[in-house]
Structures are given as structure tokens and as C-alpha cells.
């Protein structure tokens, strides 16, 4: 097989968006049709680059005219020796040059040959979300049962989920070239299942353990869940830089928690802490039933906290 030089157009994130094989030992790149590779980038000259094989391996890249400088990193060049990993920039286009000698990674072993059936999985997830949601609406519904109540809330949930998934699919398409709708949909559905279970559990435990704080501070878990879901969505777009993404999302979730927590911690905002008092059937009671003696003794301790609040307020004024 004749020698071929491959030119790859890459995105800013290093993903290949186009790949051109050029037989021979030299090639020209530019905007005019006299070139071997024609680029539709207005910032690229009609004749921009001239590439030849270097005797010592790699390629010699030369600017084809005065207008046609190129850059490696931030450094402008007129002539340079490059290898298969060097990314060149001409105009707004990033590209790299490789040939048959460029090594590729060893084959990834496929674990079995079962066919991934995303729509089958998705249907299961959708059924799970719809069931959980319907049951939670039903259990909280003490008014005259009406189909519209179920349909409306289900439609809102479905609309919200679709909007969320569509947003991620668009990001995906922009940054990685593929929408991956099914992937993002399955992530969102798993998140919805987790959300519904989490809310039911936090309310249930708050009642069972007679600890209102579990319900009051349940939003902390919801922010963490949101951060985790965003992380999985981002990883689906591109697996690059997981640490940076995780760090950004941790900051995001922490900010959300801080914003929602600040009025609770700010004792001077008396509108902040509305007591959450979830109720479940008596059979779900787990906490010990205290005698009135013990219960009222425990309430005595609140007085010290209130007095401390009053003192702190007086000091602040």
C-alpha cells in the first residue's frame, strides 16, 4: 500500500472531527481547491501549509506564504518539525498529522457479545419513575381522586425530565459531536428514581425517628444528588478531566447547600426555620415513645438555646 499521510481536524477538546488520508509524501493545506486538503476556515489562507516527510521521522511543516503562519500552542511558527501528537493551529482550525507508523492503543476487550438494548432499559426506567411518582401522589392524595391530578403532575415530571435531557444532549452534541440522548435519558431517569426514593425515605425517617431535622436538612442530600448527576452527565459527554469536573461540581453543590442553609443558620431570620412535621401511619413509628416526664425534661434544654439566641441578638445590636 502506498504511503499515506493522515490529517486530522480536532476539536478544542482533542477529539477528531474529520480525518483525511493523503497518498504520497507531501501535501498542501489551504482554503483554495489547489490544495490536497481544503479548509472552509475564513482565517486560513488560500495556500497555507506545505507538509513533507522529514528524513529523521515526523513531518516538516512550512508556511506556504506570508499570510500563512501557523501556531503550536501559543507560539507562531513559519517552519517546524512535528510529530503525530503535535496539534497545529491555522486560522481557527486545529489539526495534527500522522502516518502509518503512529502507534495506536491495544484493543479493548469486549466483555461478552450481548447487544446493549438501551430502549429496553429505558422503558424499564420510565416505568419505575412513573410507578414511584404515581404511588407517591396516590399516598399523599386525601382529596377526591381525580385522574387530572395524576396526569398533570406526571406530564410536568415528564416535561421537566425531557427538557433536562435535551439540554444535556445539546451540550453533548456541541462539545463531543454526538447527542447521546439515550445515555443522558437513562442518567436522568436513574436520578429521578433516586430522587423519589430519597424524598420518601427522608420524610419517612424524619417521622419514624421523630427527628424533624432529617426532613428539614434533606435538601443537603438533594444538592449532592444534583452534583453527582451532573458529574455523570459530564462524563458521558467526555471522560476527560474527571478531577476538574468533580471539583467544580463539589463547589457548585456546596454553594447551593450554603445558600439554602444560610437563612437557617442566621438566627436573626425568623422566617427561615419552619418546622417540618411529616406524618406517617402509626405503624411506622420506630423511635422510642418517651414518658411525659422524659419528654418535658428534654424540652427544658431548648430554653438554654433560646436564651443564647437572645443574648447573641442583644450583643449584635
Amino acid at each position: 500500500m502506498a504511503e499515506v499521510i493522515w490529517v486530522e481536524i480536532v476539536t478544542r477538546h482533542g477529539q477528531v472531527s474529520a480525518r483525511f488520508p493523503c497518498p504520497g509524501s507531501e501535501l498542501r493545506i489551504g482554503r483554495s481547491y489547489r490544495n490536497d486538503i481544503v479548509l472552509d476556515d475564513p482565517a486560513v489562507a488560500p495556500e497555507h501549509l506545505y507538509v513533507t516527510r522529514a528524513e529523521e521521522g515526523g513531518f516538516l511543516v512550512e508556511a506556504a506564504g506570508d499570510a500563512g503562519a501557523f501556531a503550536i500552542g501559543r507560539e507562531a511558527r513559519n517552519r517546524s518539525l512535528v510529530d503525530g501528537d503535535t496539534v497545529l493551529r491555522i486560522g481557527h482550525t486545529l489539526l495534527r498529522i500522522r502516518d502509518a507508523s503512529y502507534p495506536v492503543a491495544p484493543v479493548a476487550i469486549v466483555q461478552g457479545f450481548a447487544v446493549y438494548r438501551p430502549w429496553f432499559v429505558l422503558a424499564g426506567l420510565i416505568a419505575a419513575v412513573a410507578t414511584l411518582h404515581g404511588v407517591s401522589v396516590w399516598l399523599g392524595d386525601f382529596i377526591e381522586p381525580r385522574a387530572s391530578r395524576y396526569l398533570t403532575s406526571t406530564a410536568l415530571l415528564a416535561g421537566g425530565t425531557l427538557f433536562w435531557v435535551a439540554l444535556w444532549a445539546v451540550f453533548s452534541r456541541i462539545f463531543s459531536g454526538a447527542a447521546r440522548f439515550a445515555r443522558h435519558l437513562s442518567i436522568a431517569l436513574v436520578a429521578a428514581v433516586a430522587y423519589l426514593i430519597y424524598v420518601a425515605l427522608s420524610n419517612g425517617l424524619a417521622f419514624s425517628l421523630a427527628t424533624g431535622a432529617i426532613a428539614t436538612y434533606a435538601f443537603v442530600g438533594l444538592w449532592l444528588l444534583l452534583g453527582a448527576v451532573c458529574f455523570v452527565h459530564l462524563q458521558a459527554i467526555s471522560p476527560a478531566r474527571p478531577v476538574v469536573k468533580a471539583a467544580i461540581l463539589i463547589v457548585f453543590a456546596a454553594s447551593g447547600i450554603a445558600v439554602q442553609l444560610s437563612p437557617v443558620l442566621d438566627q436573626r431570620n425568623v422566617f427561615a426555620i419552619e418546622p417540618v412535621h411529616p406524618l406517617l401511619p402509626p405503624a411506622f413509628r420506630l423511635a422510642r415513645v418517651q414518658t411525659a416526664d422524659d419528654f418535658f425534661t428534654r424540652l427544658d434544654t431548648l430554653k438554654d438555646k433560646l436564651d443564647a439566641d437572645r443574648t447573641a441578638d442583644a450583643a449584635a445590636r
Partner: protein
Amino acid sequence: MIVGNMVFAPRFVLVLLLAVALLCRGEPAAAQGNPPVRETPRAAPLPVSSTAEHIFEEARGKLLQIRTELAASGHQTSLGSAFLVTDNGIAITNYHVVSQYVLEPNLYRLHYFTAAGERGDLQLLGFDVADDLAVVRLDNPPKDHFNFDARKLEELTKGERLYAMGNPLDIGFAIVEGTYNGLVERSYTPRIHFSGALNPGMSGGPAVAPDGAVIGVNVATRLGGSLVSFLVPAGYAVALLAEAQQHEPPAPSALRAELGRQIAARQATLYAALAAGGYRGAHFGPYIAAESKLDWFTCWSQTNAEQVPKPRAAVETTNCSSDSDLFVADDLSVGRLTIAHSYARSTDLNAFQFAALLQQQDRLAWNGFAREKWYTAQRCDQGFTVATEPDQGPPVHALWCARAYKSFDALYDVAVTSVTEDRKAEALISRFSLQAVSYETAIATIRQFFEALRWQK
């Protein structure tokens, strides 16, 4: 206790808040020796107008308008009335007329105007927040003054004519004719029921018998009523006057502490009366819950049976609240006790749906405005509890919330909600809210309340 009148121009809104609902009642026009006046109502009735004409003529020089003004700019913030009771310039008015000054003596000043238009400074000699009275001294007083009626309230008869005076809505001193209708029933605070038109600005003015002797002090009218007005019995003003004359006037800086002391004392009496009054058992399905036996609690019940769509659980609610409000500031009234029971019985709800219904019923309701100004943030605790004595009552899920008064040490608001936990399809939700109470009293009161809860297993 504030008179609301939509017809009033906006400039009277402040007057409404501060000086609106109070009217004075009878004063002892010392002019006992005035034969025509004495004869008028009882023996040989003259045309009513001539009595009022005479009384007002006698009283004109002894009536005052009190203005609270901003110390910095001298602009008025509220208006009320007052009346002279000694020959050395001591006058009686309502606490709520001077409350801005009591709470913020650095921000406000008190001034008076006579009917003749003379203006002067006022010194606050004392106040009685429980009876809504205050004693002030004029810097340049007229000699003339009202006398108090020497009769006891029992000696007055319903239907006696009374004449209330003051400066309503800042449009000039006026006299209003009305009738004495005894003491207000079902009220913790003793008030004379005066059937006459009291208006904002008349607070602190006198209401007098036909002989000119002061029977009471204008204090309030009932929102939504018609000519239903209230007077503070003059006896409380006599007592406050005697006390104020025996003591040095309080320093402005000590006013707020004195106010806190008076509120605490008044509330301690209120809660002692509540405890002494005891509870009776009110039946709600299988539950027997506590309702106060005291006649100053008024209960109203309601059912959801008529609701459309048809409710899936029957809920009957009885809400009892005490007529024991205590005016402290324009945006702070304390003293009301609320006890509410809701009995819910499911007709076709499952256990979860019934619990959701109970959760929706059980809301804490704090009273009062300007919460951040007066209260710390509330702190709550919840738990399952049952009477210490075995089998005394059902287990309940209880939520206890409390907040402290920022300005008054050792006073708290407490609200408790409990839901019985012994049945799947029936429950009793009880709510008890207490205002301006010491923490220990709150615990003792609520405990007494809960220990009265009984059940039929």
C-alpha cells in the same frame, strides 16, 4: 381593640393604629355641686342635649390632646386624648397612647394641647400596661380637673347615660353620648361595655356620668361591631394615680425594663388563673381532650362535612381562644391563649393518605407581626410521648416550638401540636399556643393540658 374604619382618610391610619380604639369613660367631674347636672338624667330628665352641653362646657378646660412626636423633627406620629385629675397638672391617659415613648424614649417626645390651643411638654409619671393606663404630668397645667366617680361598678345600672370625650381623628374635642352596659362578659381584662361611638384619637379621654364624675377611660372599640366600645374602669386609674404619686417617675432608660416587668407580672397572673381554672373533658370520638373551664375562653367549632368535593375524612375542629389580649406596641399584642382540637376520622382513606391529611391539618400558627423585631428565631423539637402513668392516655407525636422575646427577658412564646398515634383511621390533633410566658410556666401549663387527654381504647 383597634377601631378600623375604611372611610378614614389615609392620614388617619397612624391614629387608628395608635390611638384609635380607646375611649375614656366617666370621670368624676368634681363639680359634684352642680345641681342642674345631677338632676338631669335621673330625677327630672331634661332634653339630653342640654346635659351633654353642660358636661362638655364643664370639661372643656380639663381635656387634653396628647401627641407623640419624633424627637428629632417634632413631627407627630400618633394622637390620643387625656384628662386632668389633680390640681397640680397630673393627667390620665392610655398606655397605648404613650407606648411609642415608653418603648423608645430617645426617639419620641410627648406633648399636650389643651382645648384652648395651649401646648406644653409632658412627663410620664407611670404606666400600667395590664390595664392600658398611663399617668402624665403637664409642665404648665390649668388648675381645673375631673373627679372620679366614687360609686363602685356594681352600683351602676345598665342603661345609665355616659358621656365620653376626647379629640376624635384630630378634628377637635368632642363629647359622645352613650350608655353604660355593665362589664364585658367573657373577658379576662375588666372592661366596661359602653354603647357609644368612640373613634381613633379619643383613646385616653374620660367617660363621665351625668354629674361629670369619671366612670372610665376610653380605650377601644370592636372591629366589625357597631357602637360597641370599651372603657377601662376608673378604679384602675385611681390606683395607678395613687401609686404614681408615691414613687419617683421612672427614668426614660428604665421604661422598657419596667414594661417587661409589668408584662411578666400580668402574664404570671393570667397563667395562674388558667391553671386554677382547670380543664373539662370535651369528647371527640374516642378521645376526651382538655378545654379550659374559664368563661373568658370562647370556642367556635366547624366541620368539613359540607365541603365539595365530598371529603374523604370527617374533620371537626373546635377552636378556643381567650379574650386576654395585652397591647404592648403597635405591632405587638400578647396574652392570647389558643387551644384547638381537630378530630379526624377517615371514611375511605388508606393509612398513608390519612396521615397526609393529618399533616395538612396540623400547622403551627404564630400570632403577631414584625416577628424579627420582637422574637428570636423559633426552635423546635419533636418526639413521641405518652402519659407517664401507664394507660392514662394515647401515645402522641408532639411538636414543640418556642421563641424568646428579644426585649423582655424570661418571656417566650410556645406553641405545641400533638397528633394521637394509636389508631390508623382516627386521630385527634391538639394545638395549644401560649404567648409571653415564662418557660417553666409554659412547660407546666402544656403538661397539665396533655395529661388531661384521655381515650377509650
